[in-house]
């Protein structure tokens, strides 16, 4: 085996000579590297996923603006690799480590226990408020407000189609491609539906689930199935271009998520809501720079610039959509209109006056917090948690499959 070893060693030497002479030109640095803060980001996929791309853009924007150094790690699975990536980032001198996927949470907590001087921030997670770790934080945004506004645009499109005689009022059926029957998805499609129904009272919705956050084929097939079922408008909560592409091919108007899909669907794209993560990233960087505390649960809103809508599509949207959306947005901001107003929906034919939501994550899926007050469901509210927990099955929405 000596020969083998010597060859391997020789190869290693070739490599290491290369390493020495090259000098690792790693890490991206922002405009001015004056501040000592360095942020490490962990992403589930890379920029091909609209979900991760949205985070990557936010990360670059915030870090470049504040001139801090940052490292991006893409394609990190939801397993021990996440823990290892977090530890490697901490070892490399990051003061803040951020992860973007739900399944990263437990592994980030493990790393947070080990590196007490590093701040660990996690988007979409649910455990920060029960873990009691001073350096572990959750963040999300009141994206249900953005979804609601996108729903308003969808409702106006339905009205236009009814007015044009393309469909009858009873045929105003929306299709929705979701990932899992998870609260975040339920909250998303319900708020979208309520927005649409606030404009088009006869609207109904069918939802199908793909069983994956990113599966282009399944999302495309899901959208086609819904269109064949008679859905006249499609929206989605999954991260590929599958559904928008299917809509463009079938000529069915589409409301997407995570960013504009106008490039693949120029004729059918209406609008897209997304979370802008840059304000949160700026907040945590500034907090570390100034030695301030990072909130355990942070919910970005329309005010903080976290919940945003893209520009409307050039072809598909109905007349006057932008003005209507702006008006509704003002009402939401003023608090005169609430997305989950209990007078706007029923469950099994009855108005909901009390509901214990499963806010604390544990193996028992039991409600532990009363979340209905002042005639509305308090989603992502103070004192609960930032990640959505709305999981009521309201009337008017039909789930085609529930295997996930």
């Amino acid at each position: 085996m000596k020969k083998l070893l010597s060859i391997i060693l020789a190869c290693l030497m070739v490599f290491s000579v290369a390493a020495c002479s090259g000098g690792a030109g790693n890490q991206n640095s922002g405009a001015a590297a004056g501040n000592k803060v360095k942020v490490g980001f962990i992403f589930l996929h890379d920029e091909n996923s609209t979900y991760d791309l949205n985070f990557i853009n936010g990360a670059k924007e915030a870090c470049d603006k504040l001139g801090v150094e940052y490292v991006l790690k893409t394609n990190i699975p939801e397993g021990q690799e996440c823990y290892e990536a977090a530890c490697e980032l901490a070892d490399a001198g990051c003061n803040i480590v951020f992860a973007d996927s739900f399944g990263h949470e437990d592994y980030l907590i493990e790393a947070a226990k080990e590196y007490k001087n590093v701040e660990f921030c996690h988007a979409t997670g649910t455990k920060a408020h029960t873990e009691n770790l001073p350096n572990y934080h959750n963040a999300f945004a009141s994206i249900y407000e953005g979804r609601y506004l996108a729903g308003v645009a969808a409702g106006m499109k339905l009205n236009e189609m009814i007015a044009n005689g393309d469909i009858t009022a009873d045929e105003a059926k929306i299709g929705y491609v979701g990932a899992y029957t998870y609260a975040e998805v339920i909250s998303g499609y319900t708020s979208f539906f309520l927005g649409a129904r606030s404009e088009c009272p006869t609207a109904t919705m069918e939802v199908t689930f793909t069983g994956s956050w990113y599966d282009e084929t399944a999302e495309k097939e899901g959208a086609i199935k819904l269109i064949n079922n008679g859905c006249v408008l499609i929206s989605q909560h999954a991260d590929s271009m599958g559904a928008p592409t299917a809509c463009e091919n079938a000529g069915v108007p589409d409301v997407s998520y995570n960013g504009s899909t106008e490039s693949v669907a120029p004729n059918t794209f209406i609008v897209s809501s997304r979370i802008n993560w840059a304000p949160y990233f700026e907040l945590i960087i500034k907090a570390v720079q100034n030695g301030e505390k990072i909130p355990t649960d942070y919910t970005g809103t329309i005010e903080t610039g976290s919940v945003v809508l893209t520009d409307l599509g050039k072809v598909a949207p109905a007349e006057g959509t932008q003005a209507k959306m702006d008006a509704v947005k003002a009402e939401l901001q003023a608090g005169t209109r609430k997305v989950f107003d209990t007078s706007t929906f029923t469950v099994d034919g009855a108005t909901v006056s009390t509901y214990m939501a499963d806010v604390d994550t544990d193996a028992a899926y039991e409600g532990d917090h009363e979340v209905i007050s002042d005639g509305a469901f308090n989603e992502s509210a103070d004192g609960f948690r930032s990640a959505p927990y709305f999981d009521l099955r309201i009337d008017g929405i039909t789930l085609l499959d529930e295997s996930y």
Partner: protein
Amino acid sequence: MKKSKSEPLFHIVKRDTLVWYKAWGIRAAAIIAALIVCGIVTTVTTGLNPISVYGAFIQGAFGSGRKVWITLQNMSILLIISLALTPAFKMRFWNIGGEGQVLVGALATAACMILLGDKIPNPLLILIMTVSALAAGAVWGLIPAVFKAKWNTNETLSTLMMNYIATQLVAFFTVVWEVPKGSFTVGIINQSTNAGWLPQLFGSKYLLPIVVALVTTASMFVYLRYSKHGYEIAVVGESEKTAKYVGMKTEKIIIRTMLLSGALCGLAGLLLVGGINHTITTTINSGQGFTAVMVSWLAKFNPITMIFTSFLIIFLERGAGEVSTNFGLNQSFADILTGIILFFIIGCEFFITYKIVGKAKKAEPAGASKSIEETKTEKAEAEEKAEETAEESKAEETEEKTETAEKTE
């Protein structure tokens, strides 16, 4: 036609066994050639300095103490799976079901941790986990083996299809055990109590798989080279008919070997869930059941050589990740580099087995004006010839083996 008179530009001829330094010289040349091609591709497509890209490869695998440990840990798991597949391959039983066998082992481990965690003492739990992981993997190997032994079904297809069943089983139980509901995530199992977590050796969370891999490598080496079982596997691999002729019970050997192969895959599953990830997902094995096929073949089924081939694969994988992080490139670019390097390494084996003989210099100049088409046909002929020679020599080898087998009997 004049073709029959003129000589081809070159033939391909099977070599006699090459002296070791020449063989390794060819391999080294292949690696250097691969690095040069990678360098050109890097500069042309990204404008980066290829040398700093190679530097990042080293960085990724050995950049810090933790990175070295992770590299060794990943290498150990891949090595165990490769070792698991090896006895089956030596027997010419194409077990490409490593992925599924690892997954069911992982699933069995996770089931024990979730259902029995905190209900029974930890050492007992770990014992049950180990037994059920090995048993689950063994059963997953046994099913295709029985079908092959009894009805001579195609094991390539059956082992492959068993993978999908395993993946779907894991997906099903992920939904059963998911926390919170609908998230399709099991999360870390027993995070607060650590029940069923495999013990750390000498306070290092990375050491256990490494030790297990080393022990497995040594045992597999001895098993294949010095045990009667190992010998039987080799004979069945060379020729099943020969094995039958000399009175070996081939059905028994196939089933026994696949039980071993599956159980070892189950062991890898145990380490993945109980020792490393502490969770279960459909992608927990990240395709290593297939990568292991390459590791095993590259090493020509020699367990000791497999240490190096598994190292090579993991080194490239870790390096590729670092390249994409450091230079802000897409992971796919690093995968392209890995692909080029592997292509050269696998391709160079051809030049170790065969040599290209140029046309003799005395040949008439008329040959030079030959049309390209003719050259092509001739080349094909030459290749056919080479193949024939290869087959002949293989047949000879088998005969030799048979003789020895008879002697021992």
